[in-house]
């Protein structure tokens, strides 16, 4: 008994020593925190699917075979900035998380941005839209992967103004995201000779839009710009059809629309809508192959949204930077700097780069929702209408107010 315990004590000491030795040489442990809306109106476009995407990125990176130990935890910010920052703080302080991914909801995303900068972590944001993340509020610890409000405004917005939609009325979600999207789109509308004739700010997660739609109808604007997302957008589009808004000659601009939204609205109502995304599962063989693997693991067999795809691609690029560094320095700013120095390339978004302000640049695609007769499968929703190269879609560095650019 005595000898056994001494033996195990010695063994334990030996293990502890060797473990410290390894850590001293090259730390190959990584902890990822997937922070998202896990159950609310943005849960389907990010949520558990984003965690799955991060997991697939871990598996596909093949780092485990090279001696890396990578863990992932997930959290539900419930679309509340205070909850989001509390989780982020706990993850850094207690759980020793290195990188936080996803974080839809611009309000939460901006709040978490500050925490990550303070804790010197890595922030790979895919779900949030606000262009402020890489503009006025940019951070050396942040990479904004998938899309932003500037891009949405300069693709969908611009295309609509150029097609003759020169008077706009906005239905805007009353928080950071809606405000940013309305601001960026208004800039595009006025720059192209159009005019914003009015708008209404609605609370996040509104079930009934009829009052707001009537105001939009009464404004006689040619375009009703939807500066909202997720469940709010689907409800607006559905109810706009009911009130005969499109039949009355006004056009809806779904500035931000996700695959899961189209599914929720149904093609019958959604057909013909124009919008922009940076990823669609049915683009090429690579995206189809990834999406097939992804859908098999999703509980409702849904292919990835662009947000979930962005989580995957962002995490893969993060791993490439860590590999290039030869280990995890647990220094967020240093890792992000490495990420920016390497061109991005993956199966989902193709070739691109991360600008000094943290903005990932890649192509944006203008889509149109298919007619029910054109759709061949349960998720066959989009027709490609045009491609906007990344350098034209996103904020030019000359227009960016990011402090990182002034060095």
């Amino acid at each position, binding site marked *: 008994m005595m000898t056994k315990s001494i033996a195990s004590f010695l063994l334990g000491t030996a293990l502890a020593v060797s473990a410290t030795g390894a850590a001293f040489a090259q730390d190959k442990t990584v902890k990822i925190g997937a922070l998202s809306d896990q*159950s*609310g*109106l*943005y*849960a*389907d*476009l990010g*949520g558990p699917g984003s965690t799955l995407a991060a997991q697939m990125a871990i598996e596909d990176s093949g780092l485990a075979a090279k001696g890396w130990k990578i863990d992932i935890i997930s959290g539900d910010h419930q679309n509340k900035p205070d909850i989001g920052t509390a989780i982020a703080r706990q993850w850094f302080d207690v759980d020793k998380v290195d990188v936080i991914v996803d974080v839809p909801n611009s309000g939460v995303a901006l709040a978490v941005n500050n925490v990550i900068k303070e804790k010197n972590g890595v922030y790979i944001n895919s779900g949030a839209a606000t262009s402020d993340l890489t503009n006025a509020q940019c951070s050396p610890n942040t990479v904004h992967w998938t899309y932003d409000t500037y891009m949405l405004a300069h693709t969908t917005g611009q295309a609509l103004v150029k097609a003759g939609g020169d008077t706009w009325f906005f239905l805007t979600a*009353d928080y950071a995201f809606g405000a940013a999207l309305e601001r960026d789109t208004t800039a595009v509308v006025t720059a192209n000779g159009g005019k914003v004739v009015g708008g*209404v*700010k*609605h*609370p996040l*997660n*509104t*079930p*009934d839009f*009829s*009052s*707001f739609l*009537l*105001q939009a*109808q*009464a404004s006689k604007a040619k375009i009703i710009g939807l500066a909202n997302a*997720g*469940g709010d957008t*689907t*409800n607006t589009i*559905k*109810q706009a059809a*009911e*009130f*005969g808004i499109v039949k*009355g000659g006004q056009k809806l601009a779904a500035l931000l629309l996700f695959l*899961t*939204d189209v*599914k*929720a*609205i*149904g093609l*019958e*109502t959604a057909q013909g809508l124009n919008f922009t995304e940076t990823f669609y599962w049915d683009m090429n063989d690579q995206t189809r192959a990834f999406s097939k693997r992804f859908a098999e693991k999703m*509980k*409702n067999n*849904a292919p990835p949204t662009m947000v979930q795809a962005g989580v995957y691609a962002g995490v893969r690029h993060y791993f490439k930077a860590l590999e290039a560094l030869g280990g995890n320095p647990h220094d967020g700013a240093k890792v992000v700097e490495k990420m920016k120095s390497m061109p991005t390339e993956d199966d989902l978004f193709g070739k691109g780069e991360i600008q000094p302000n943290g903005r990932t640049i890649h192509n944006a695609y203008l889509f149109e929702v298919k007619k029910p007769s054109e759709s061949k499968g349960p998720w066959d929703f989009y027709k490609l209408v045009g491609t906007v190269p990344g350098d034209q879609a996103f904020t030019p560095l000359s227009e960016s107010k990011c402090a990182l650019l002034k060095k």
Partner: protein
Amino acid sequence: MQALYAQLLVGLINGSFYALLSLGLAVIFGMLNIINFAHGALYMMGAFVAYFLLNLGGINYWWALLFAPIIVGIFGMILERTMLQWLTGLDHLYGLLLTFGIALIVQGVFQNYFGSSGLPYAIPDQLKGGMNLGFMFLPVYRGWVVIFSLVVCIATWFLIEKTRLGAYLRAATENPTLVRAFGVNVPRMITLTYGLGVGLAALAGVLSAPINQVRPLMGADLIIVVFAVVVIGGMGSIMGSIITGFALGVIEGLTKYFYPEASNTVVFVLMVLVLLVKPTGLTGRAA
């Protein structure tokens, strides 16, 4: 001015849902003394049952209006038999907590299987389109919702306040022992009443399915407002909850026009004001 008429009408439409839901709550509270927090989840189940009936059974909207409340009502009666009945005579808090728990479980299960963005349910062909009223374009379906729920509300009020069955019910709430002595099966009546209240919730769910998304959280978003309606109207008052439901819909509609940012808080501000002035609610009797 035209815009104002339109907002009033839109408010009336939302008020229909508030009225139907708060009516069910008032019936259950008035007769069973249970604060039924599962009401939102049961409303959501009504919408989902309609969705399943259509997509799995090919049963259309009109039959769903009949079957969904029956199916969900039976589910409610099972809940009452197996769980709620044991709480008779205990503090309100127990019923509230139990039904709140049931609501969370039901919502969680639906969310696990159907996600959060919801499923589409088309407006039935007969009610598609709209009519131009001069001051607004009224979708036929919305007009139908207002009329139909008004009829249902008045019928329920009539059933409880003006018929012999309703008299039994009210008597059983006042003095169950005495009513039992007259040979009335009180527990069965209570179960049926709960089923009726739940059926009303499910009916509201079917009505709202074509307007809103059929979503697991559709009830959770609504239930708090509906509780405020019940509190303002006076707990347990049938007519009070109907009138308050419609009235608050209109007030909320007007807020959406004049100050949209406050549209989801105005009901609660009113609730606070009413409670300050008349703690039993507008039509409530002192306990």
